[in-house]
Structure formats: C-alpha cells, structure tokens
C-alpha cells in the first residue's frame, strides 16, 4: 500500500479533531433516531427527511433574520423547534393511532412520511440548491504549529458534548426521562400505574425529531441544501444505531464515534478507498457483537 501522506502526529491529531467534529452531527441525528426507536419502538425512516427539513428551515429563518450571526444562532434553535412542532402534529393526529399495529405498518407509515416531507420541500423550496453562509466568525480555519482546524469544526466540537450532557440530564435526571425509560421496558405497566403514556410518547417523539432538526440546521451552512440530502444521513444513522445497540442513546454516541473517526482517518490513510472504512467498521462490529455494542432496549 502506497501512503500518499506521511503519517505524522500532527496530521493524525488534525484528522482526529476533524473526525470528532463530524461525529457531532452524526451523534445528534442518530441519538434522536435511537431515542424514538427505543421508547416508541418506531423505526422512523422519516428522520432523515426531518433533518433535511431542519436544514431548509434554518436556511429560511437565517435569511428572514437578515443573514447575520444572530440570525444563524436563532435558526439553530428555531428550526429544530419548528421541526419538533411539525412532528408533534404528525404524532398526535396520525402516529398515535398506529401504535398498536405491527412494525411493518409503522415502517411503511414513516417511509410514506419521508416521501411526503420530500414533496413538501419540493413545493415550498423547489428543486434547486439552497445555500447559506457561515457567520464570518466561523469562516476560515485555525492554523497552529502545522495543524489545521476549521473554526466551525471547533464550534461543532463544543456543541457535541453539550447535546450529549443535555440528553444525559434529560434521560437520567428528569421525570419524563425516567418515565420514558420505564415505558421502553414495559409500556403496559407504566400505563397501569396511572401515567398518561400517550403524552410521554408524544414528548419523546418531539425530542427525537428536534434532534433531527438540530442536526440539519448545524450542517446547513456547510453543505448545499438540496432535496435528497436525507438519503445518505438516514442510512448512516440507522447503521450507527444498529452498531450501538437499538434504542440505546449511548450506543449511538459510541457508534457515531466509530463511524466518524474511521471515516476521517480512512481519508488520511488510504484516500482512494476511504468510502469503505466506516462501513467495514460496521461489519466488524456486527460480526463481533451482533446485537450491538451496548445493550439494546428491544
């Protein structure tokens, strides 16, 4: 094997940092998917479409607020909230009537939702590309002692742990988190002790979809926002969730780390075939631990 780049400590650590930044969005999206999968038992195929919707909304909100840095930060909050609201409407009026059906029905339903959201995007924003800029404070990159790190990657490196801590707090320290963990294990029992499971489900679904929207609005300034940007993320998110253990949010974190780091290190070590690395990692993990790295809630 011919190494195009000399592996130095600097280039390796640079690649690890960039990979960790990539992990952030992967983790945010896949943790939302995992949450919904764990508590509601719904393989939400439309999760990717909600991510796309988040990106488009972030674009529109930032533009409406004049394209300033403040507008960008506002969109990071408002776009996921809008996505969460849409998901609440969907859950209350459609999904809540289907919980008793088997997985296949739910799978088909969320697949249909993904198609509907794609068409909504087509009607509202059209088929062309949309693009929004990073606020000027995030443009360019830091260079120190031969290392290169885009400023926005540094910002993502801060956001990732914040979201992880927020999720940990929500799941372990709040009442809704405790109820949803209980509901994931034994739904009927939670209902039997007098808790309105239906609203717990709605809340969890909203939080999951909020995370999809957040992921979308975080990548909006670094990608071209187009129809179809949901296709690759949904596959990656499912792979990560399966690798980490179905429904386990920390498994999603672990899976994202493996996926993101093998991707970025693969690019450095063997760039011609870098595409293979994260998928090969998935295969290796599943061969060694077919049920996923951490305990599945299924």
């Amino acid at each position: 094997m011919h190494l195009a780049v000399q592996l130095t400590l600097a280039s390796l650590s640079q690649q690890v940092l960039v990979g960790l930044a990539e992990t952030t969005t992967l983790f945010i999206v896949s943790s939302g998917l995992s949450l919904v999968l764990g508590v509601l038992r719904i393989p939400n195929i439309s999760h990717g479409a909600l991510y796309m919707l988040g990106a488009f909304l972030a674009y529109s909100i930032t533009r409406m607020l004049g394209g300033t840095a403040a507008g960008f930060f506002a969109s990071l909050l408002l776009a996921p909230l809008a996505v969460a609201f849409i998901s609440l409407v969907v859950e209350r009026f459609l999904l809540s009537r289907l919980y008793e059906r088997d997985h296949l029905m739910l799978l088909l339903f969320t697949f249909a939702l993904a198609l509907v959201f794609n068409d909504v995007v087509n009607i509202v924003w059209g088929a062309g590309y949309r693009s929004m800029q990073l606020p000027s404070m995030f443009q360019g990159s830091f260079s120190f002692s031969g290392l290169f790190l885009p400023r926005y990657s540094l910002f993502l490196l801060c956001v990732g742990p914040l979201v992880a801590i927020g999720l940990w707090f929500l799941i372990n320290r709040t009442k809704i988190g405790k109820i949803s963990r209980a509901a994931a294990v034994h739904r009927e029992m939670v209902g039997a002790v007098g808790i309105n499971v239906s609203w717990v489900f709605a809340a969890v679904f909203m939080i999951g979809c909020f995370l999809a929207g957040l992921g979308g609005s975080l990548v909006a300034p670094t990608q071209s926002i187009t129809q179809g940007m949901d296709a690759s993320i949904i596959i990656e998110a499912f792979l990560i969730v399966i690798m980490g253990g179905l429904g386990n949010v920390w498994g999603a974190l672990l899976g994202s780390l493996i996926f993101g780091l093998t991707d970025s290190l693969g690019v450095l070590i063997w760039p011609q075939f870098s595409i293979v690395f994260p998928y090969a990692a998935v295969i290796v993990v599943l061969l060694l631990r077919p049920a996923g790295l951490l305990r599945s809630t299924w």
Partner: protein
Amino acid sequence: MRKLWALIVCLGIFFCMPFTACFASAAKPIRIGIVDTYSGPASYYSDDVRDAFLMIVDKINSSGGILGHKVQVLTRDDKFRVDLGLSEAKELIMREHVNILMGTINSAVSLAVSDLCKKEKVPFLVTFGKSAKITGADGNHYVFSVDENTAMIGKAAAIALAKKPYTRYWIAGDDYEYGHDLADSLWKNLKKRNPKAVLLGQSWWKLGEPDFTPYISAILAAKPDCLIVATGGPDCVSFLKATKASGLNHKLAVYMHTAAVSIKPLGMDGPQGVLSTDTYYTYFPETAANKKFVAEFEKRYHHEPNAGALAGYLAAVFIQKAYKKAGAINTEKFIDALQGTSVASPVGKVTMRAFDHEVVLPMFVGVTKKEPGFKYLVASDIVTIPGKQIMPSIAGIKAARAKH
C-alpha cells in the same frame, strides 16, 4: 330501436375512422420524447434543458412548424435511475412512436438509452450526460451529443493548467463514472503538456458526500500546489462552500469544472480564485445572440438560464436545421443531414462533428472573482478555447471502438 341506432352510429364511426386518420396524417406532428431527471438535485440542469427546448419549440410552432409539421414534446422523469429511464424510453418509442428521443443527465441512462435507440433505429440526442463513452467507445449511428464530454473537459483543463507553474497535484472527486472519467482524461492530457507534473495522491468520496472537512484536512497534509476537483452537480456547490469555509483556496490552487457556475447559489460568499472551465455563462460572450437568449429565457421563466439551457437550445435548433436540410421527416435523412451541420447559438457557431456525432463546443476558462454589478461571484479573465482544440481524437475513438 335504440339498439339499431347505436349500431348505426358505431358502424358510422368505424367507416369514418380511416378518413380521420388520413386528415390527421396530413399535419402529423413531429413527436420528440425527452427522458430526463426532473426530481432531486439533478433537475437543476434538466429543467433548464427542457425549458429552453420548449421555448424554441414554441417559436418554431408559432411560425408554422418544421416543413409544415408541428413539434410535439413529451417528457418523462427517470428519477436518475437506469431501469426507469430505459423503460420510459421504450414506452416513448413503442407506444408514443416518437421520431426523436432526447435527454438524460445521468451518463449511465444515456448509455443504456443509446443502446436501445441503436436497436430501434431512433435518433437520440444526449443533452447533459457527460461520459466520453457516449459518442466515443460506445458511440453508434443513432446517438448524438449536444453537450461537452469528459474527454473535452479534461483537454480544456489540461490546456489551462499547463500554463501554470504547478507541479505537485492532488486529484479528488465523486466516486462514479463522471468523476473518474474526467480525472483520467485530465491527467493524461496534463502529463503530455507538462511532464514535470506529479500526482501526489487521490481521494474519492461518495456522491452527495455531506462533509468534506476530513478530505480537505488530509489533502492539506500532503501539501500539493494544486487540487483538481472532479465533482458534478450539487457536490460542486458543497465543495466550493467547504473551500470557502476552510480557507482552502488561500492555501493552494483549486481547479473545478463548472466552478464559476456552481458558485452562484453561494451569492457573494463563494471562494475567490478558483480556476474553472465552463461551456456557458449568461454574461459571456457579450454578443447580441447571448444577450437575446438570456433576456428571452428570463422573461419566460423568471430566472437566468444555466448550462442546461444551452443544451436545450442546441438540441432544438439542430433538430430544426437537420429536418429542413433533409427535406422530409425521415430518420436516415435526418441523421445524414445532422452530421456536420452548423447552427448559430448564444456561444457562437456550433458544429455537429460528422464522425462521432459529438458537438464541437468552445470551452471558457475563468477564475472566480467578485465583480461589480453581480450578486454572485463570476468568472473573470475569461479565455475561450475553441472547440476544435479540445475535441477527442478520431484515431483514439476508432481504437477504442475496435476494442469492443
């Protein structure tokens, strides 16, 4: 009694049928089928192909059609899929009896439909598929191309890059036909013109790669002078965005086909100094023909035309000219007439090369720059490379076809 009447009416219709068919054939329209991608990101270009084509067809029809025949256009969405595109092409040929087929932004669909058209003996005008195989190794009597191909892009880029002092190169691109074809053609031509050029390495990402940052940091670690980016469609926009966000364009030279056009959605925030080759700009050449075309397109569709519109325009005027030259609505006469014919266009006089049915199209080389009066970055210091200089060699095509 009622039954009798019904019978009479039925018989009447039955016997009148041949007559109506006769009347209809007197002004039988020329039917043109377009199979292309009208959903998803690729429709950005395909929509303009169709819209410009319809614009010219409407003009043709309002002035009496071609040889007295009106032109009728049928469109089908292949959703960027080979199987779907192929079955739609079949349907257009068998059921709709189209005289001519057009389309496909996806080279794989272009190649599949081209093969079908060869069997069914229907002329096929490729509007946006860019694989050099279409009119090269896999070319046939029935397939024509009205846009540039990867062999032409590679030659044009090599001409532009050979003038620069760069020697250490890195190639990065989409891991599919277009990316690899373009990179191969470019590198072969560049090595011929600048033997000192060294390829440090290559990176290939999947189509629609969401995050280029790991690739960019790995490329920077190799310290090349120039990065050749072989991507198409929305990935061009994403990569330009990542270029700007990471400040890549300040660290090394970047070349990308269609960079100066793909940069448009980025507004004033695109990266400056990116070397680009393009077939069409709305602002160059500053001829009356181009200005008129842009004005008419904008008036009708309320947005500026892109490179797809040039392909749509060329297809329409080539069809019109060839039928007029042929003097009849006849496939073989049409093909004979189209070979070697020339038409006027927004980018000047354009000829259909007789040997391989590839259009001789000029290529523009420019560098992205902020210019007063534009809401987006444009190509500056534009140099025109005449089509003749970048056409693939006939001997090369003959050799490639002989291998088959």
